[in-house]
């Protein structure tokens, strides 16, 4: 929660919260999970109309921001997604957009794709992880062969967010002269998508196989010399949004647990009157403030492209990753037995935080990155 929202941002936040409360309350998400649905495309499209995919798109391409800091605006929505543990391709689509708008001089070529994404008609997802491997985007085993006017892709990606709903993948692959990224339509010949159900019931991932998949050379995004920087940008945007989402997850879970502190009685006293428990809520409050402080700093640094954005992103990622699950597990403990049942909502929060902690670098990987980025 950024402390300094201007009036327009507040309206933007309220509108997002209302859209989520009205159309995507947890009761609805539970129903969807029961039937194996992922998210509602029409609902996503109405979100896109509210600007959920427009904030990183430059004005020349008809995008625009609320405050001038597009990622800060987007983080407001990400936090609302977290508060409601909402399913939807907010992070997936915006991360791909972040890459597409980053390739200077090529934006026109991808304008149609960008337009489709920000209007909500198209769903795209970054195909970057590979089976059995940790986060290592610049060493892909998926191969992209350039053949004159076309590119042929071979290999397997996994943990691709919303893979079964995506119309388009941004594939990070080994090209002839280094790593490149290529846009591949999900319906291209040779693409096979298999759903991977993971920890987060409301947010499936998928394995995507590419067998001799041929696309036009124009689908390449950037060159092998620009790709590492573009990948870094996508990574930072993804992690910043992820931290903002987790901040929302923990913020809401903490509210729920504080209500419980006053409502639940034991030995004739509310739980909130026991010092041993009060101290844990005090710790949680402190950690939550730290999560919010470091997330805001990371989002702002990435939004403004500060020279220390890589450092601040990894600082936030490792702290938010570890503390979010620690807090929520402690909240589960304070709720007691009910909290390890399916009936209680808290597991949705624990699931989302757990996923986020392990996606786009684990806390350990981020700490090592921090160690290497410490300013001399």
């Amino acid at each position, binding site marked *: 929660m950024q402390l300094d929202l201007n009036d327009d941002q507040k309206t933007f936040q309220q509108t997002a919260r209302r859209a989520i409360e009205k159309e995507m309350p947890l009761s609805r998400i539970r129903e969807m999970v029961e039937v194996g649905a992922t998210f509602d495309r029409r609902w996503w499209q109405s979100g896109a109309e509210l600007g959920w995919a427009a904030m990183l798109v430059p004005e020349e391409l008809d995008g625009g921001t609320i405050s001038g800091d597009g990622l800060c605006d987007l983080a407001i929505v990400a936090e609302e997604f977290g508060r409601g543990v909402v399913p939807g391709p907010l992070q997936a689509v915006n991360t791909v957009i972040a890459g597409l708008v980053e390739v200077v001089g090529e934006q026109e070529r991808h304008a149609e794709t960008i337009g489709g994404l920000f209007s909500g008609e198209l769903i795209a997802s970054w195909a970057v992880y590979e089976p059995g491997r940790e986060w290592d985007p610049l060493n892909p085993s998926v191969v992209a062969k350039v053949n004159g006017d076309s590119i042929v892709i071979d290999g397997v990606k996994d943990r691709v967010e919303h893979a079964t709903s995506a119309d388009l993948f941004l594939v990070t692959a080994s090209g002839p002269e280094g790593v490149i990224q290529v846009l591949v339509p999900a319906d291209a010949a040779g693409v096979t998508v298999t759903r991977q159900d993971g920890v987060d019931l409301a947010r499936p991932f998928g394995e995507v196989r590419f067998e001799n998949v041929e696309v036009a050379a124009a689908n390449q995004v950037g060159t092998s010399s620009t790709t590492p920087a573009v990948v870094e940008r996508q990574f930072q945007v993804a992690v910043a949004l992820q931290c903002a989402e987790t901040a929302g997850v923990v913020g809401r879970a903490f509210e729920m647990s504080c209500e419980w*502190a006053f409502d639940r009685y034991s030995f004739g006293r509310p739980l909130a009157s026991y010092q041993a428990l*009060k101290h844990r809520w005090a710790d949680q*409050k402190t950690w939550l403030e730290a999560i919010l402080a470091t997330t805001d700093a990371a989002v702002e640094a990435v939004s403004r492209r500060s020279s220390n954005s890589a450092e601040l992103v990894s600082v936030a990622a490792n702290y938010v990753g570890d503390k979010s699950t620690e807090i929520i597990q402690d909240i589960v403990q304070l709720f007691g037995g009910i909290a390890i049942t399916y009936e209680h909502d808290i597991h949705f929060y624990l699931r989302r935080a757990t996923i986020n902690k392990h996606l786009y670098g684990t806390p350990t990987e981020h*700490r090592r*990155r921090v160690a290497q980025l410490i300013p001399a």
Partner: protein
Amino acid sequence: MTTETVEEFEARARAWAAENLPPEDPDNPPHFEDDLEDWSRQRELQKKVWEGGFAGICFPQEYGGLGLSTAYQEAYGRAIHGYQTPTRLNLPTFAIVAPVILDHGTEEQKQKYVRGALMGDVILSQFFSEPKGGSDLAGVITRAERDGDTWVLNGNKIWSTAAYGADYGICLARTDWDAPKHRGLSMFMVPIKEQAGFTLNRIRMVTADSDFCEEFFEDLVLPADALVGEVNDGWTVASRQLVYERTAVGGGSQYTQGPRMPRPQNHDVQSPAELAKSLGKQDDPYVQDRVGLAHTYEVIHGQINHRVGQAMRRGALPPPAASIMRLFHAESMWTTRDVMMDVAGGLAVAPNGHYAGAITNGVEDYLMRQSASLGGGSTEMARNLISERVLGMPREYAADRDVPFREVRQGR
């Protein structure tokens, strides 16, 4: 008011520092010794700052300050980076005691203690804790009795940091034993000098430093103007002091000068990252994980102070939220100290070689690890405050509530 912009101010401070302040020796960073010479050095440095016109940036002009905003204070901090400054005067003189005098002192007291401190003539310390307990501050049993125009002090204070180097201790004492505990207290300024009825001893700490002191008062006579605030209203003054202390210990005080954070008693010669490098462990994945964690806490420490400080100023969080900074500060210090030991690894057993100094400092800091969660009020008390005053949870049961203090049970 000044018309000088922050940038102009910073540039002027930078130029002045280059001319007037001795540079810090990077190979031999300040390591405070617990001797009086070090305190004279602090006084000298403060006199330089005063003469240069940079003392008390956020203090009112009437009492010798500059009356400027925190932006100027921060600019000054940047400008003097790398120079020797009287950092030791920040806590408690500038950040805790002087603002309390500004809030509750008489005109004469403000001139004497606040202006005096800014001029480098007066160093202040705190006489709060007593052998029977520090957390229950309102339970002090040191007594002051009125004798005509004077007060007579009897009792015993303990854990007063660096009182041996100071000129006055601000001292909470009981003046009415028939009132409930919070209502029978008064605050006094006790001169620290050789005088009848006053004894000060140094206490050896686990690091072998002797920064802690204990004081004994036996019919010590204080003049009438030693009283700060109203008689029997000492708790109001003490409460104010606690707010300043929590803010300062967390690192968020506007009244410090130079580096905002108090330096640890044994200033780390190296950071965990530097220690890792000098031990050749910088590529060890486990060491990287730990070093990354320590740096993470260091960065977030600044971020949370910024956020909570702003939230408090805007009313988004109530003033007791200062305890959030305090609690995080302790965690951050624990983490750094634990990481130093992890990085040192087996070499911590008996450090030698070219890295011995750094490891020894790390080990000493580790032995003093809990000082970060006791000094300035324990983290347990911080948690009580956060749960009760920020989250609105029920107050702990107090057996001494509304009972004349005379009847309150005491520990042995």
